[in-house]
């Protein structure tokens, strides 16, 4: 995970030739919102509950990372493209987000630093933050086009989850997106943890079945299936 954030040469398309993504706004909008999800997953996927704020130390935000990622994507020379724009967007967004976490954790004291130890001797690396759960959550990044398709699925699911009645909406949102524990959610909605887990799995299975019956629901795309133009 030591690759630089920039994956291609910076440069605008030649004069007179519109950038293929700027000429196809539907596609660009879709890619931009997908990059947003990649960045959110990378920046906040390891924050398992505990009410942690979605902020990065040093003042950077997911929006800053998204802006840098979009600029990287649009500066990429189309002639050098070897994958789809969708796949490239996942790679760029993920690397930019990793860089942002590295930057924000540089020089922070580790949680287990003894009181009285000097500040400058302990550094929390991004890799240290990626615990077992985050590692699991990151699986699938090795195939960027599949990661893109999974983000699209999450966008579709997110729309369906928003329409759920309470308390299913709260339960699914808190467990699925925020990674909060069933005990914590149970206290909030006044249900036992067992019931929270049951409602979550039942609702998510139903939503997935409903979503998959929609012909527009994105399926995991095999490598190379997307076009590179």
């Amino acid at each position: 995970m030591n690759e630089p954030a920039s994956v291609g040469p910076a440069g605008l398309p030649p004069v007179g030739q519109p950038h293929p993504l700027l000429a196809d706004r539907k596609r660009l909008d879709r890619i931009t919102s997908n990059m947003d999800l990649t960045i959110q997953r990378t920046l906040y996927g390891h924050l398992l509950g505990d009410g942690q704020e979605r902020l990065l130390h040093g003042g950077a935000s997911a929006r800053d990372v998204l802006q840098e990622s979009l600029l990287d994507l649009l500066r990429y020379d189309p002639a050098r493209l070897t994958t789809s724009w969708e796949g490239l967007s996942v790679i760029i967004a993920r690397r930019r987000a990793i860089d942002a976490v590295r930057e924000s954790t540089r020089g922070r004291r580790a949680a287990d630093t003894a009181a009285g130890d000097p500040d400058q001797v302990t550094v929390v690396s991004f890799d240290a933050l990626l615990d077992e759960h985050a590692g699991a959550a990151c699986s699938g990044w090795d195939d960027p086009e599949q990661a893109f398709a999974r983000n699209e699925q999450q966008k579709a699911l997110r729309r369906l989850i928003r329409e759920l009645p309470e308390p299913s909406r709260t339960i699914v949102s808190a467990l699925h997106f925020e990674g909060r524990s069933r005990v914590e959610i149970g206290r909030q909605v006044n249900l036992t943890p067992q019931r929270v887990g049951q409602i979550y799995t039942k609702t998510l299975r139903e939503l997935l079945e409903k979503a998959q019956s929609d012909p527009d629901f994105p399926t995991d795309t095999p490598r190379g299936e997307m076009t590179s133009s």
Partner: protein
Amino acid sequence: MNDRDFSGAEAAGRIDAHAEPTITDPVDAALASYLDFLEGLAGRPDLDQLSADDRRRVSAVIGSLLAGRGIELDGSTPSVEALLAGTELESLLESPDLARGDRGQGSGGDREAAQVDAARPIDRERARVERIAHALRGADSRVRVTAGPHKLLGPAVTVTYLDLQIVFFPAGGHSPVISRHTRGVLSRVLGDDAGLDYVGAVADDSSEMLTQLLSASDLSPAAATPSDDMQLRWPPVLALPLALRAMLELAAPVWEPFVFDTSRLEPLQLADIASSATHRVLARETSRAYRSDKGRAYKSFAGSETAFTDLIVMLATSRPADAAVADALDRIARDAA
């Protein structure tokens, strides 16, 4: 017992007191076990016991669960226009073809982006300043970066470190051009504020945000130098973070801490210790392999050992007035010049 000391696998094997349905479906049981795993209550469940069909169902739910972590349910993505505002790519969005685009229509478009775009007008000046501030924040952890309007320059970003103060402003263009008019404005800006050391003109239409830093002496009509060399050069145009770093290296160098020699056996005499420390520090600093102005600046302190020693003794033995300290420092600076 803590918040997470609850096992979903236990729930799968008993009837709950609140008449909750018992988990008998193998897919639900496997998912409950996986939630236990995610909450740190159990090890990773073995899905090999499931039939191929059930394993596929479980994998689909788990894959979806993992892919959703960290995403905001009610979050919305800023529009492309808002993201590109203030960047060198902004102009590419202004063509009539793109403005007419049928974004947000049909199944492929992102309706969320279109809704947000419609609801929130783009503040271009703010976006330009935010982009400059963002680039500066990553340049050096010592500095404080504040975005806010300057009374003469308009939207600007102020960088401070101790008493060093630099104001950066978006100048547009692909390279920073200091016109006669701009030169006049910058002279006024630096002349009006004695605490302001540099002004940075940022060509924020360039991808690297090329920056020209200027001080009052750079803009003065005539300058006298000890060598009578009148060809004063402006600092080089650099990418924004590099321009700040270069300036900090010159104006606020990092001094390594002086380590006291604890093996010293002689009686402690302040003047001796001060002299020893001065000689060691100056020998180290004047021998640095810096080039150009910086190299000359560091080497110029050679021979100032006595003046530094006197200053240390004065500061350690009395409470000198600020003016006396300033005089002593002035003397050292003059000798070095």
